[in-house]
C-alpha cells in the first residue's frame, strides 16, 4: 500500500527520530511511504489563536500538497483531528472545498491506521516496565481514538499498562495556552505527571508529542524518575527481529 506522510511542524523540527520510527514501522508493514518535502504546518496554531486569515493561507498551501489518492499517516491525533474536522469549516464555500471533502478523510493518526487499515495489533516490540497511557485530547475527542493505542501497547512484550482515573484528562499543553497561561498549563501538567508516578509508572506513553513535550519539560526541570515516550518509539523498540517482519 502506498501512503503519504504528514509530519507535523514541531515533530519535523524537534523530534525527527520519532517520525523516522513511524516510517520504519510502516515500511516493515509493507507500506510504500512518500513525503512531500514542501509541507510545513497544517495551520492549527493560528486557528486556535483565532487568526483565521493566517491559518487559511497556511492550510490552503498544506491541503494542496497531498495527492488525494492515498492514505495520509500522521504521528499525532491533534493535527489529524484538525485537518479532518476543521478544514471543512475553514474552506466551506471556497475553491478548496472539494479538495478538502476528498482529502481530509484520508488523514489517519498512526495507531488507528495500524489497527484499522492495516489490521496490525502486534509490532513485535519489547519494552520492560510499567506505563500509563495518556489519551491526548486531539486523538481521543477529535479522532475518537481510545482502543487502538491500547491494543498495540498491550502486545508489547514486557510492558505493563496501568489505567489511571485521569487517563482522559488534558495534560495542559494546549498550544499557545501553554505560554499564555503558564501557571494553569503547568498545574495541569504537574498533576498528570504526579498521578502517573503515584500509579507506579516508569513511562508516560501517548500518540501526541505536543503533550509529551510539555510533560517532559516538567519532568526534566524537576529531575523526576519517569520518562515520556511517543507510541511510535515504543512500537519500534526491540522490534528488529519482530514477528511483524516474519509475517510479511
Amino acid at each position, binding site marked *: 500500500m502506498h501512503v503519504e506522510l504528514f509530519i507535523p511542524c514541531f*515533530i*519535523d*523540527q524537534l523530534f*525527527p527520530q520519532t517520525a523516522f520510527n513511524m516510517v520504519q514501522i510502516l515500511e516493515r508493514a509493507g507500506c510504500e511511504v512518500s513525503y512531500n518535502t514542501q509541507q510545513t504546518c497544517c495551520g492549527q496554531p493560528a486557528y486556535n489563536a483565532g487568526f*483565521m486569515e493566517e491559518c487559511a*493561507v497556511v492550510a490552503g498551501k498544506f491541503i494542496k500538497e497531498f495527492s488525494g489518492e492515498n492514505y495520509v499517516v500522521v504521528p499525532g491525533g491533534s493535527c489529524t483531528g484538525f485537518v479532518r474536522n476543521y478544514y471543512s469549516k475553514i474552506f466551506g464555500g471556497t475553491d478548496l472545498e472539494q479538495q478538502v471533502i476528498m482529502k481530509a478523510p484520508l488523514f489517519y493518526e498512526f495507531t488507528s491506521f495500524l489497527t484499522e487499515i492495516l489490521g496490525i495489533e502486534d509490532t513485535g516490540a519489547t519494552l520492560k516496565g510499567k506505563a500509563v497511557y495518556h489519551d491526548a*485530547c486531539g486523538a481521543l475527542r477529535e479522532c475518537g481514538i481510545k482502543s487502538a493505542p491500547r491494543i498495540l501497547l498491550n502486545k508489547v512484550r514486557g510492558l505493563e499498562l496501568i489505567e489511571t482515573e485521569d487517563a482522559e484528562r488534558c495534560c495542559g499543553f494546549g498550544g499557545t495556552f501553554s505560554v499564555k497561561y*503558564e501557571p494553569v498549563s503547568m498545574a495541569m501538567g504537574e498533576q498528570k505527571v504526579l498521578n502517573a508516578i503515584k500509579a507506579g509508572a516508569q513511562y508516560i506513553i501517548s500518540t501526541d508529542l505536543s503533550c509529551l513535550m510539555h510533560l517532559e519539560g516538567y519532568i526534566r526541570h524537576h529531575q523526576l524518575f519517569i520518562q515520556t515516550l511517543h507510541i511510535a518509539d515504543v512500537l519500534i523498540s526491540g522490534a528488529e527481529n519482530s514477528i511483524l517482519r516474519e509475517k510479511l
Partner: protein
Amino acid sequence: MLKTRKQIFIEQSREKFSDAEHRRKINHSLLQSDIAFRKGIPQFSDLQSAKKTANHIKRTTIENLDIYLLRFEKHFTQNGGKVIWAATAQEALDAVAGICKEVNARLVVKSKSMVTEEIHLNPFLFSRGIEVVETDLGEYIQQLAGEPPYHLVAPSMHKSKEEVADLFHKKLGAPEGLAPEALTQFARKILREKYVQADIGITGVNFLLADIGGVALTENEGNGRLSTSFPKVHIAVTGIEKILPSVRDLALFWPLLATHGSGQQITVYNSIFTGPRKSGEKDGPERMYVILLDNGRTRLLADPKARESLYCIRCGACLNVCPVFRNIGGHTYNSTYGGPVGSVITPHLKEMKEYGHLSQASSLCGACTEVCPVGIPLHQLLLHNRQLAVKHAARTEKFAWKLWAMACSHRRVLNLAGGHTKNRVAALLFANAWGKNRKLPRFAPESFNQLWKKQR
C-alpha cells in the same frame, strides 16, 4: 497602573497552582461528582440520543425565542401572575425594589439563583435596608463567608467540613467543631424562622414552561418550596434562555439536569409554580412575579454561532470535567458564571475586550463539549470567541502571526537555520513564558525534512 482582568486572572491562577490544600479539596470534591455522575448515567438507555433530542428542543426554542417567551407571558398572566421584562440588570433590580416597596418588605428569603448573583441583587437589597437570607445550605455558607458562589450548582464545594464548622462557630455562635449533620440542623433551625418571617421569597428558575405558563424549580433541600410557600410574594428571576416549549419536555430535561448536575436520577424536589394562590387553594403566595432578564443575552442571540450557548441549563457538568476549573477553582474567573460555559458567555454578556482572556484560558481539550447534556459545542465556541477577539489583540501578536504565516508558506525558510540557532532563538523568545517550571524542548540538529532529503 491598574491591573487588567487578565493579569489578575494569571496572578490568581499562580496562587492556586501552589495551593496544595485547595488542590486536595477540589480533587476530592470533583472525584465525588464524577463517581455520582457515572452512577447516574445508566438511567439513560441511550444517552447520546437523549442529548440530541434535548439539543433539538433547545435549538428550536432559542431560534423562536420571541414566540415562546410571549406564549409564556400570555399563559402565566392568564394564571394570575405578572411578567416583568428587564432589558438590563438595573431594570431587574428596580423591579424588585418596586415590589419590595409596595409590600414594605423587611426580610427576603432566597433559594439558589445564579441570575440574582449576576445582577448583584443581595448587596442592592442590603443597601436599601432589606435583610436577605440565602436558604440553600451551600449559598448560606457562602453568604456567611462573604464570598460569591464557587460553582454553579455546588456553591461551597471548596470548603472542607472543618472550615464550615469554624465559620458557623464564628458567625453564628454555633458550638465549635460541629459535624456536618449537626451543622445542617443548626442552619435549619435559623432558616425555619426566616421562612415564616419573610415578606418575599425570591427564587431562580430552572425551566420556564411556555404552554402552561409555569416555572419549574429543581432543588434538593426543600428550601425552594419553603421560600415560595410562606411569604406572601414570590418573585422568580430568570434569564430569557431558560424557556422550554412544554411541561412535557420536563420528562427529558429533569433527569438530564439531575444526572449532569449532581449524578442523581432525579432531584429530590421538583416544583412547578403556575401563578399565585387561586381562590379555594390553601397555600401559595398572594402574588407571583416572573422577571425575564436579557442583560446581554440578546447579544448572544444575535450571533448565530454563540447563540448555541443559550441552550445551557446550568447543570455545571462542564465545570466538573474542566481541567482548567479543577486547577484554578471557581473564584479565579472573577465572573458570575465560571468554567467553560462562563468563559463562553461572559465576554458576550459583558465586554469582549475585558473578558476575552477567559476564552483564551483553555487548552481546548473538549471535555466540556463531550459532557454537555444539551450538546453545546463549548470548546468550539471558545474558538469562535477567540476569532472575535483578534481585533483586540496586541500589535506584536498580530505581527507574530503574520511572520508565522510567511515562514510556513515557504518550506526553505524553516530549513534556513540549524538546530543550534533555533535553540538559541527559542530560549530568547520562550524561556520566560514557558520555562519557569519546565525545560524547553531541544531542536534537532536537522529537521525531519532535511534528513529525509539527505537519506532518500
